[in-house]
């Protein structure tokens, strides 16, 4: 069996997840990356998306919001605004959020990369992550 790494997810609403896992996949801002035991120290910005981690051969999934991930040989630590498992997701709610975010992006007049634009994009990604997880 592969060496396990500890995985911890903290949100402002509490510690969402604290477990051991064989491998973890994190949706980084610069693309998804995987972490196995003995990984080199990494500090990455995280965008809203799906967090995947493997436990006893089965893949677990959860939607996470934006934040940061820090990992080294033995652990992965994530801080994120949101965390939801498949049973937490309210699909209608997510769809409403998606439409609202799309509308905000469509009517956005400012410059690309403005805080407002980034926020709308983040909301959009978070809605998409939840929808992807639920379906």
């Amino acid at each position: 069996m592969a060496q396990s790494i500890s995985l911890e997810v903290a949100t402002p609403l509490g510690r969402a997840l604290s477990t051991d896992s064989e491998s973890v996949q994190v949706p980084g801002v610069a693309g998804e990356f995987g972490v196995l035991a003995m990984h080199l120290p990494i500090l990455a910005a995280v965008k809203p998306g799906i967090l995947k981690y493997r436990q006893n051969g089965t893949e677990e999934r959860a939607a996470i919001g934006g934040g940061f991930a820090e990992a080294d040989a033995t652990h992965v630590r994530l801080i994120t605004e949101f965390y939801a498992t498949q049973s937490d997701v309210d699909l209608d709610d997510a769809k409403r959020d998606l439409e609202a975010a799309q509308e905000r992006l469509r009517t956005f007049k400012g410059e690309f990369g403005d805080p407002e634009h980034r926020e709308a994009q983040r909301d959009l990604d978070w809605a998409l992550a939840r929808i992807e997880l639920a379906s």
Partner: protein
Amino acid sequence: MANLKEIRKRIATVKNTQKITRAMYLVAAARLRKAQENITRMRPYALSTLDMLSALAARIDDEDTHPLLARREEKHVMLIALSSDRGLAGAFNAQLTKEAYKQYNRLIEDGKQVEVVAIGTKGRDFFRRRSVNLGQTFSNVFEDLSYEKASEIGGAVISAYSSSKLDAVYMVYNEFKSAISQQVVVEPLLPIKPMSPDRMEGTADYIYEPSQGEILDTLLPLYVNVEIYRALLESVASEHGARMTAMDNATKNAKEMIDSLTLQANRARQAAITTELTEIISGAESLNA
């Protein structure tokens, strides 16, 4: 001795007051429980953020890497005072404003320019009455406390600091120890102090995704917001704790007062009965005679 009717009226008044203080005690107790829960839930997030930031800061040799890490000579200082919007919380606001005012005067004596940011109407009113350089004020933050409100305050602080209008930011707030004890603390918020870099020496540098600069750009403001949010939560819990204790004491005092008034009322009643009896008896005797 006051007459019986007056005393009974006073008893009724004190009883009404007692009802109010008891209700306020119960409300404060319920809110305290919720506020305490919020802090406990927030802690792992705040700690992880701090851990990541210190791990990152320890790997930065140059303080000029990011404006929020920049150390300048302290000339312009911002003092954020966290009071409450409502009174009747014992010494909660008095202690806070006293300490904040002391800090303010100390900084002024040192020849610094100080701007006070008051969160909560009680602190705002206190500083308005004094000749204090009062900057932005925030009220109604605590009623429905959210992370968004904390980042609103954080955003204002960060932009002032980044544009070099400020050289240091301190927070004065009531730290929550327990339901019966709160302590006023003064905490430096900016510049962010890299924590014990020697300890980290020899550690391999991180792989940064996307880059160290971009991570700092988002992680540092996040840290500031999280710290403000944490201080707000501490303050709210302290406020409810202080109010709970104050109202518990008020209820007890009201009870003591009712007891002593009841004693007075009984004495007055007895005295009245005695007088009446004496009158009747002497009346009857004068008929017999």
